[in-house]
């Protein structure tokens, strides 16, 4: 059960984020919702790569620097490095998207004088 808590957190974060994007009226809150979804997905990737080694948790994935008992007894207890690389890339991309979204929100505020999505409706149906 305790191993499933991160996955439950991931699903909860994604749904909280989707709720914020779909139902919040404020543009900044929508942006925060997207960032919560992104953190959920990043947490998912990190959790995928995590491995358990007895009571002590995972072992750092550096072969030359790992404790010898981990290498000899349970090499599979090493944390996977690939998801960590993926997460780093995804965080960097997330920052770029966040910056772009916030600058758009800023310019929208300049043009419309409000952040309420109900009032930002100049586009026709």
């Amino acid at each position, binding site marked *: 059960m305790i191993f499933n808590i991160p996955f439950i957190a991931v699903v909860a974060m994604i749904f909280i984020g989707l709720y914020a994007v779909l139902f919040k009226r404020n543009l900044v809150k929508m942006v925060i919702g997207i960032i919560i979804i992104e953190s959920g997905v990043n947490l998912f990737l990190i959790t995928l790569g995590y491995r358990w080694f007895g009571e002590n948790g995972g072992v750092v994935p550096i072969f030359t620097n790992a404790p010898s008992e981990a290498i000899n007894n349970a090499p599979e207890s090493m944390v996977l490095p690939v998801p960590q690389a993926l997460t780093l890339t995804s965080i960097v*991309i997330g920052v*770029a998207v966040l910056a772009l979204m916030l600058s758009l*929100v800023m310019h929208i505020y300049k043009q419309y004088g409000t952040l309420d999505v109900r009032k*930002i409706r*100049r*586009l*026709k149906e």
Partner: protein
Amino acid sequence: MNFLEFTPALIVAIPLFGAFLTPIISKINEKARNIFAILILLITSCLVFILTQDVFANGPRTYIFGDSNLALPVVRILFEVDGLSMFMAIISITLALLGVIYSWSFMKENDGLDKYYTLVLLLVAGMLGMEFTGDLFNFFVFLEISCITSCALIAFYINKGESLEAAFKYIVISAIGALFVLFAVGLFYAQYNALNMATIASVLQFGFLDKIALILLIAALGMKAGLAPMHMWLPDSYGEAPTSVTFILIAATQASLYGVLRILFTIYGNAFTNIEFVFSSAIIHWFIIGLALITILIGVLMALIQTDFKRLIAFAAVAEIGYIFLGIGVGLTSLGVGYGKTALEGGVFHIMNDAFDIGLLFLIAGAVYYATKETSLNKMGGLARNMKYTAVFFIVGLLAVSGLPPFNGFVSKLLIYESTYQLNPIIAIIAILASILLLAIFVKVFYSVFMGPELPNLKDVKEVPKSMLVAMGAIVVIIIIFGLFPNLIINNIVQPATNALVNSSSYISKVLSVVV
């Protein structure tokens, strides 16, 4: 031979390199910058052309980044190109090249153009990367590159509230879509410890998690391609972006379409042809056909009531996306049967025709806007007197987009109708009726823009500058050639692409032989 090995990487690297060189070049002067952008895209299109010939003759080609002797099979970053990738690359690079030529005069009066050209080249690198990559995580990265750049380009007229609104809508949709793609990548990695598409395809179990991943991927990429329930961002961003950007955005949308094809036919290809999963996968096929029909109807019916020139064409573009998905869906339902292949050919050929037909109409809308500074159809009229070439081009575009004989739209739409009729006549009838409606809409537009009495405020309208005429004329020539010699195009360009789709095993085995 040695040179060909590096071309897949070079085709993505040259626009990327050019993008970051553009701000420096634009310090010299504006003309040098425009020539530089066109030159970069010309070199890239030459490389695409060379690589296409090789891939069509010798089968898929891979390029592995980094040391080739490293013994780390599953985590290598690799590009893989096959017939379908090259087919999409031809469309993307042609649209990008013509779009940049068009924007020489079209964007002349705006400032901030060094950023504009940088973003356009980055967008080209992003979409070519999506089409060439053999790795799902890289696909996500290139998807995000194309999202960010196209969003920034949609918001180019930053002093207009509407374009900011459209850009915000677009970035929300594509950020969530891209995160869904990343989540699906995580699901694959959790089960198979692999990231590249061919390895995943060869070990795919089609279990519960794979079904979730399939739904996430199709939902996210279908959303970015403009499939029905989530099409609403498309008219907004197509309508509000500068016309030359809209033209290139068509190619970016179709790169997402390529993602749908790659996932359905390569990654899940084995699962769909396996007899045990026929029941569960048949639901997906009918789902796609249903969504395609809804897309066609929504696109056509919404186009009927538009008064803004570009928004009207954008809704027609939604309808055309529906036709492509109809062809793909019918092809999936009857993959082994004779007409299934016809449907697939029609769908794939229609990707190309949609890009050129809708693209031409957008360029004409841009030309009309350039000449009159008007976007509302109600305030235009009698333009054929002063803009003869544009009027003729519009006739070609409207006939091609509604699928009338001497032009290219007819060929692909006929293939789709033919095969759909054999699956279910009612679907074919709906599709044909929608096409007729499309013709009616565009005849109305032609009449209200180019015909009728001369309006007093539009008396001294002039024909648009040469670079815009060259771009439009080139597409008209392509449309007419495609319409007159459909067999030539289908045999030489479309069939390698559909063969690559149907026989995914050659794509998979190529990577497995290189990597493992």
